[in-house]
């Protein structure tokens, strides 16, 4: 059976890259004694699929992986067994048995939501809310995308599904918003800071980096904020449940039908 696992990644773990996270989970699944299915062949590997790779330095409250299990006591037991063997900075949030018809996590990803706050100081942007609204109200947001192979002009606006200014709690230790939300004992130490929130295309064909949107926004307002001073947090990863031709309907990957 196919099981979708939702997890958070924060604190020092934000420095662990995608491939190492895969290795981390392979070992964690062994430690937790989960009855995962292995591929056939001389060197069998665990059947496992990750949703959208997370850039190094970004924290997340909405990471996903799918595994294929041979047997399962309950999804709660699986969540507990995994959490028992997690390190600080990775927390299993939920697990759900998926209908067999659901595409794997990676193929299902359509969008992701992010928030961006500053690690130090305040946004040097007067009228932050209005500026964000004006930026998003543009008909087009042209962007020159440089890849190893080519330089192409794209319109970012197509892939920004929503954008607004909000507030977030952060734990001052590592200026982590994810830790502030996940660690109840940290409640008293938390502070509230403004953040920029957005939902953007995260599909394999049209993925948009939140930092690119942020840079365009800074450019629009004429302010300079080095990327080293921002903390990006992925809040959720979505699939699109709409049928072809219908209006986009974003559903968190955990709830995919």
């Amino acid at each position, binding site marked *: 059976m196919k099981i979708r696992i939702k997890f958070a990644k924060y604190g020092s773990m934000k420095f662990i890259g995608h491939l190492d996270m895969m290795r981390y989970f*392979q070992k964690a699944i062994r*430690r937790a004694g989960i009855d995962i299915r292995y591929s056939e062949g001389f060197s069998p590997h665990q059947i496992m699929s990750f949703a959208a790779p997370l850039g190094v330095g970004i924290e997340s409250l909405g990471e996903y992986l799918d595994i294929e299990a041979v047997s399962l006591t309950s999804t709660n037991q699986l969540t507990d067994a995994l959490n028992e063997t997690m390190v600080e900075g990775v927390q299993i949030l939920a697990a759900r048995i998926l209908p067999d018809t659901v595409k794997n996590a990676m193929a299902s990803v359509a969008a992701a939501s992010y928030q961006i706050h500053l690690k130090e100081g305040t946004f040097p942007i007067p009228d932050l809310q209005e500026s964000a609204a004006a930026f998003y109200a543009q008909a087009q947001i042209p962007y020159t995308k440089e890849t190893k192979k080519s330089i192409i002009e794209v319109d970012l606006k197509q892939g920004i599904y929503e954008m607004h200014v909000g507030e977030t709690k952060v734990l001052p230790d*590592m200026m982590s918003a994810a830790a502030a939300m996940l660690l109840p004992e940290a409640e008293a130490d938390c502070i509230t800071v403004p953040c920029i929130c957005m939902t953007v295309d995260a599909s394999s064909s049209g993925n948009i980096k939140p930092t690119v949107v942020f840079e365009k926004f800074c450019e629009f307002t004429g302010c300079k904020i080095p990327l080293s001073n921002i903390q990006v947090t992925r809040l959720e990863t979505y699939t699109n449940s709409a049928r072809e031709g219908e209006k986009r309907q974003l559903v968190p990957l955990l709830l995919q039908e």
Partner: protein
Amino acid sequence: MRKLALCDDILMQVEKPARYIGGEVNSVMKDKNKAAIRFAMCFPDVYEIGMSHLGIQILYSMFNSFPDVWCERVYSPWTDLDQIMRRENIPLFTLESQEPVREMDFLGITLQYEMCYTNILQILDLAQIPLLSKDRDDSMPIVIGGGPCSYNPEPIAAFFDLFYIGEGETQYRPLLDWYLENKEKKGSRLDFLKGAARIPGIYVPGFYEEVYQEDGTIKERRKLYEEAPDVICKELVMNVSNTHYPDKPVVPFIKVTQDRVVLEIQRGCIRGCRFCQAGQLYRPVRERDVEMLKTYAAKMLANTGHEEISLSSLSSSDYSQLNELLDYLIEDCDRKHINISLPSLRIDAFSLDVMSKVQDVKKSSLTFAPEAGSQRLRDVINKGLTEEVILKGATLAFQGGWTRVKLYFMLGLPTETEEDIRGIGELSNKIAAAFFDTVPKEKRVNGRVQIVTSTSFFIPKPFTPFQWAPMCTKEEFLEKAHQTRKGIMEQLNQKSIKYNWHEADVSVLEGVFARGDRRVGQAILTAYKRGCMFDSWSESFHNDLWLASFQDCGLDMEFYTTRKRADDEIFPWDFIDCGVTREFLLREWKKAQEGIVSPNCRSKCQGCGARRFGGGVCYEEGKEEHEDQD
């Protein structure tokens, strides 16, 4: 939440930030207010190398099993972070607490190979601890060295407060207890060192000096503190089945060199190859109980989630319970989809059968280490591997489907002639020919066999019969490598043979360090100040800086390398007793020069001296005989 020593900005700039964040599975966090002793355990090389070392995992686990001790890890910051730390004046920190090393009670540095010596200075420098022991005050950690290179600690003696000679399991607790007692009494650093010198296996270099003769050799060792012992006897664990072994090794996030569970099945070796230092240092041979190994294998796999387990020893085929252990592992690991890796197995019908069960024959290669190209030279070095055995093993392997063979040789061994070097090409060729004779055309995968022949340069090491032997110059080494290549090119099957050889500069330097005295320490310090670091990494090795440093110090490198030592020369390491006697080594050196082999411990005791520790094959057999008589 744990706060990191480095800010996000720095971690995002450096290659592999995971090297510096700690927090790995099974890394140990403790309340620092409850730890009477804080011990920083350092492997002076990059994280991926250091994390692959079993010895540190054993000591880390043992120290942390003491309720009053918190042991944390430190590795060498790679050159990118090194620069940032110097520029921004960031003190070196431990991975667990992320606190400065300078605030610890001890800094233990493992010495696994000579080419890490400048990295020791990097560690001290970044930790903001004076490089020389004599310049440290009571507020600074006690800097302690251990591991194989501490069997000739003299080139680095000035950088350490003390050395622990031998296996770490036995005397650390007494040493720590004395540290606490001295602290309680408000004793000084010097008081601590004086007391430490009384503990077996502990060597305090500051209590001695070397006096030289006019020709540069050592005249005598003089004691500067009367009560310091004349001889330091190595420490060792006699019952290796009932001693500390880690059941929860730390699991790194990034891929490291040894990314697997390591099961040490025995210590020591019965073989007595004359070039091999480990084979002498770790005598007598001591096997671990097979039931203990099964238990630990299961525990370590369950606690780490590793997908591979590897057996570790100097010669696994000599482990008497190997059959039973492998049967257990093969059955258990197959069920759990875990790979078994089997290094250092002799190639024969048994091992090939085992390997075919645990490896993909098509993808794996077989390794032979004849070490020398001719039978004559193999007799000189006492490598009991004959051409017949190699060819028989290779033939069996080719029948079993293997098509890749790795061969390891050394160049520059004592008494080596051009004929011996030609033998390397000839033996490689015979193995290739054995493939074509054994495997019919229609069954050849890709139609061919792949022989990879590698040579390293022989470096005489202390406590081996070759400690008296001259070492080649760089030019001689390169000429020998050239001859080897030529010899291989002349072979009929040369297209099937690939030849690799090493750089000679590093080998020469390693030779100087291996048999160096205290004066060499000056050159190491000078080279470090000129920017030498990570000398074992070819991209950061600067031979010109080393040559200039030796020159500055008025030291002749050849004095340490190419000189043939007199039988009665006083060596810098003579004050250490590693169990094997100097008389035995000298006997072996004479036999080597006559090309006479010595049987292994199991066949016939050679009287090496290690029996007095109350163990080893000869001791066990002696005991049985004794019991029979009763």
